[in-house]
């Protein structure tokens, strides 16, 4: 550590010592994540304008291609690059430590970028119109599968570097006591990521060989193992998102940890029970029996649900105590009324908690039962659910924390501050309308992943209720509102990072991070 001392800078706001390599890795991952978000976001608008039957923008082939691009860029590239940045922050930065083996860390990053480029090339050239799930025997170009494998290997390297940084920080005594809760939460996300990536290897390596005609693939086995990857990867997002909740709570209002034991046990529940819960994707599949389905989805899934219920109490509870400690003690709700609602970090945090819990969580838990799944499976209710979890939940939280990453890591002032302040309201409000109306459309039986619900050219006619036109029109408006919010986010982040005003050395960044100075003194 002493030899590396010159490679550290001290953050003037948080007093955290930031290793130059951690700094650079966070920046690189965050920039690629934003590029993926931009591609995925443009694809989202095209998909939306096609499913809005009144516009019906794209042709069938283009629609499925763009839908594949949307899914891969959002759910894999944006989310995972951002999570790598979270890991480099929660590990080396929060523990005042160096990044061990920076060459391996950069190799991981390069592999991830290379894999991304391969996948993007196959998708954009029409060699992988198989959608995000790429269910065998739909066939994509071999480089599609190879790209995913390279990406996963790169992510494994980054996860290993995170584990190694915990070991190095402990050995070099860069902190006293136990690792912070945010780091612990990121550790559970990293463990789930390791489990997920094993599933990923178990499915994409055989599928790659299958695409080269070197081995057979069973469609049901693919669905089983793929969901071991597909669902668990969403659980990385949940664990990372909850860690970011604790992080944002601390940065915005100095939220405290009510009880370390409770919050940490809740994180461990995610690790223990989530892989099994992947079974709820297969509730109406022919390959598995009812005993297997019921056992895996009920017992194992509800223990992971319990974990989210606990965080749903402890995070807002910590915010309340944090605000009360700052003197907002009048009545029951002064702490909430006087909270920094104009700070996009704080409003993002609250929207993320509320929409994830009340819309995403409730729909998810109900669809995970056999009897409700049979009336929801593959209808628009499913994307209605996961846009509330992974978009209004995870992506919203990640957007919120970006408003702190810009001043703390990039050392730039957040540009277009008035726009940044309203960004979470537009994005979360739009996504809320979008998710709810999409779910409603699904209750009428409107299928997901479908180019034309007027079924032109089909041998038998079918016309949905006029109510479907209404809710899908509202869905389009909500989606466009969210897209506007997403566009503002990209504008603000890209402008701040590349053309933004540099922060002065001693500047506490009041405009950029209104609450950070106070909470930082509480934190460090």
């Amino acid at each position, binding site marked *: 550590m002493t030899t590396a001392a010159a490679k550290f800078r001290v953050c003037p706001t948080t007093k955290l010592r930031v290793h130059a390599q951690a700094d650079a890795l966070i920046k690189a991952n965050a920039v690629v994540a934003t590029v993926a978000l931009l591609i995925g976001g443009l694809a989202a608008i095209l998909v939306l304008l096609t499913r809005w039957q009144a516009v019906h923008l794209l042709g069938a082939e283009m629609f499925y291609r763009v839908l594949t691009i949307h899914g891969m860029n959002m759910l894999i590239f944006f989310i995972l690059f951002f999570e790598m940045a979270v890991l480099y922050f929660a590990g080396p930065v929060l523990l005042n430590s160096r990044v061990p083996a920076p060459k391996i860390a950069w190799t991981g990053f390069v592999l991830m970028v290379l894999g991304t480029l391969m996948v993007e090339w196959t998708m954009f050239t029409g060699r992988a119109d198989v959608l995000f799930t790429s269910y065998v025997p739909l066939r994509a170009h071999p480089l599609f599968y190879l790209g995913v494998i390279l990406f996963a290997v790169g992510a494994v390297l980054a996860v290993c570097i995170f584990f190694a940084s915990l070991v190095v920080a402990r050995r070099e005594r860069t902190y006293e006591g136990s690792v912070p809760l945010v780091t612990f939460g990121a550790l559970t996300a990293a463990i789930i990521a390791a489990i997920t990536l094993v599933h990923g290897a178990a499915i994409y390596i055989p599928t790659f060989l299958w695409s080269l005609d070197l081995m057979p693939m069973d469609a049901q086995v693919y669905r089983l193992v793929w969901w071991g990857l597909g669902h668990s990867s969403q659980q990385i997002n949940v664990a990372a998102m909850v860690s970011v909740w604790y992080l944002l709570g601390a940065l915005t209002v100095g*939220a405290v940890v009510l009880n370390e034991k409770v919050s940490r046990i809740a994180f461990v529940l995610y690790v223990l029970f989530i892989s099994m819960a992947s079974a709820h994707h297969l509730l109406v599949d022919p390959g598995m029996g009812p005993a297997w389905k019921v056992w895996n989805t009920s017992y194992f899934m509800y223990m992971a649900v319990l974990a989210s219920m606990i965080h749903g109490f402890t995070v807002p509870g910590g915010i309340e105590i944090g605000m009360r400690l700052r003197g907002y003690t009048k009545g029951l709700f002064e702490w909430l009324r006087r909270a920094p609602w104009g700070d996009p970090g704080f409003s993002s945090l609250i929207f993320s908690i509320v929409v994830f819990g009340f819309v995403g969580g409730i729909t998810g838990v109900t669809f995970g039962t056999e009897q409700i799944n049979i009336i929801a499976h593959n209808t628009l209710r499913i994307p209605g659910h996961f846009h509330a979890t992974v978009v209004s939940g995870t992506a919203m939280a990640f957007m919120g924390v970006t408003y702190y990453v810009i001043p703390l890591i990039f050392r730039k002032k957040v540009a277009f501050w008035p726009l940044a302040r309203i960004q979470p309201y537009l994005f979360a409000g739009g996504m809320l309308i979008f998710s709810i109306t999409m779910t409603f459309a699904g209750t009428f039986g409107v299928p997901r992943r479908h180019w034309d619900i007027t079924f032109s050219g089909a041998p038998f006619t079918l016309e949905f209720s006029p109510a479907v036109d209404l809710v899908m029109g509202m869905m389009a408006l909500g989606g466009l509102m969210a897209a506007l919010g997403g566009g503002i986010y990209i504008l603000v982040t890209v402008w701040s990072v590349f053309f933004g005003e540099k922060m002065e050395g001693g500047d506490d960044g009041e405009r950029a991070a209104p609450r950070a100075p106070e909470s930082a003194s509480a934190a460090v």
Partner: protein
Amino acid sequence: MHTGLEPPRGVWWKPIHRSEKIWIALAFAWCMVLFAMMPFWHLRGGQNPSGIRHRVDPQAFLARAQEFTANYQVGEDNGFPVVEPPPGSDIYLVGRMWNWSPVLRLRRGVEYTLHLSSLDVNHGFSLYPLNINIQVVPGYDYGLRVTPGEAGDFRLVCNEFCGINHHTMVGRIIVVDDGAPVVGLVPDGEVSATRTAAANAGGRP
């Protein structure tokens, strides 16, 4: 009191506050209710995706379906054979790019065993307007016991992406009241949208 950014020092394994205990107990109890409800409703309710399941060679499944169609065909509709199987029999529905075949003509209140499979890629069996959804996987025969509870003209939408013409994959199931003549097709009319998923008495798989 410290935030989630600070390393807690000393022993942080401390007793839980009463308010947190109450919340965890409530949440745990609710999770147990959810846990109990699924098996309970599996046994008690009438809407479960359990059935006979086994692997099947797609060509063998097609041969069985063709034999079934030849035995019980009563007409033709839009180029698809219309099949009226005897009560209680095994009935076959083949999904492939991009159609469902044959058109099934069933009787209300009679139990059948509906065999679903695909000849090529994954398809999605979505019965409209009842909104009953089943995954159809190539290489697997899913035998569901169904008793149509309502007469009417139903549609089958494919709700799993299966290629460029996925949106044209619409099939038809007709349910007639007991005592209706065996032949004489219901003309292909619009399916009324007033029936919703709530009317799920039909197609109890």
